[in-house]
């Protein structure tokens, strides 16, 4: 299983030691995000509902496309894929 690069938005970097991107294994979006949040219940809760769906105020992109348009969490990831996690910023 090849590594997926996940870009982390600034508000969530506290969960990954301040890093702006993380490499994790995963063949689907779900697998990659599960690997990202493994062992961190708060981080999981931030991204997923109790039913395991992506929260509506969290967007994840494969390349420049929203994964919700590519099959959602089950969307397959090509080798060397880059996922971008995005949340709303409010600051002005």
């Amino acid at each position: 299983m090849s590594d997926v690069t996940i870009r982390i938005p600034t508000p969530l970097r506290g969960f990954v030691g301040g890093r702006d991107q993380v490499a994790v294994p995963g063949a689907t979006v779900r697998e990659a995000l599960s690997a990202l949040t493994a062992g961190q219940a708060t981080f999981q809760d931030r991204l997923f509902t109790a039913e395991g769906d992506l929260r509506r105020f969290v967007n994840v992109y494969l390349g420049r496309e929203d994964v919700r348009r590519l099959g959602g969490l089950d969307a397959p990831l090509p080798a060397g894929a880059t996922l971008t996690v995005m949340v709303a910023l409010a600051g002005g």
Partner: protein
Amino acid sequence: MSLKDRRLAELRARVPEVGPAEALALQQAGALLIDVREDEETATGSPVAAVRLPRGFLELRIEEKAPDASRTLVLMCAGGARSLFAAEDLTRLGYGDVRSLAGGFSAWKAAGLPVETPPQLDAAQRERYRRHLTMPEVGEAGQHRLLRSRVALIGAGGLGSPIALYLAAAGVGRLTLIDDDKVERSNLQRQILHAESRLGQRKVDSGRAALLDLNPTIEVVAHDTRLEAGNVLDLLGGHDVVVDGSDNLPTRYLVNDACVTLGVPNVYGAIFRFEGQVSVFGGATPGARPCYRCLFPEPPPAEYAPSCAEAGVLGVLPGVIGTIMAAETIKLLLGLGEPLAGRLLLYDGLRGEFNEIAVPVDPECPSCGPGASVALTDLAAVCGV
């Protein structure tokens, strides 16, 4: 016979002359009617839809106005003499069908043909906007358009500072500032609209003073108030573009929903630490451009938003994002280029990278989707960042 009269007689023999009625018919059939008189002369009236290009710049600028050398040109001046000289010059330049209006503007007016008084830039405006006027994409018509434009800016803070300064400098004729804060010293690390000398003032007053100092010829309307569901349509209505430089999610949703209701484009930007987002939402025909809720249908509940105390931002970051927002605003006002719509530009200041993600129109959008009508509401305050 004077030298001039002899020369004019020669030109009359060569240059086809037309009367006012024929000139109008030619113009209506696609010919370009060019008024070659000086600006002071055309200021009091010129044929409707004539291109006003003073004789001194005629050869230099004619190709911007008439790129097709086979197009029929009808030149006119005050009495029909200068236009003969000018016609000869344009023929020599390479235009194939150049005619002169016999009797010039006097004959046009005497025939009762349509006249307009073109808006004029005074000498100081000409000097101020020279770098715009020399660009064909803006030019005099574009500068007039900016001067007639109305932009509402929400937030006279980090993003609002560069946006307001650049829009004022560009000559956006009416800027409405909306903010209910006071200037504090901790603002000055990034809010370059304000100054130590204006600490404690209302931000909209401090901002207005700075903007009028930069460009006293524009109008700055100051609203020292917080946007709410009850006032948002009144405050934002009547503007050509709304620019969202607010600092909280409830206002951003309210601004979006009001802009969708009003059909006004919303130039959006948001920042946090070293990161920024910028896009243009709505404002085109319904369904043509996404809105903020197509991207984020709903705000996170308060427990998922980081605390306000965590907020921090590199001082220059609002400059990076705010100037892009100002550029997008001016593009929208002038109808230039491609707006940053349907996509969100992400700036990563630490990596020095821009990335772009697609923001398609969401057919089920709660705000702009077909049949959707979102009620304007004041959302509970969530800090967000």
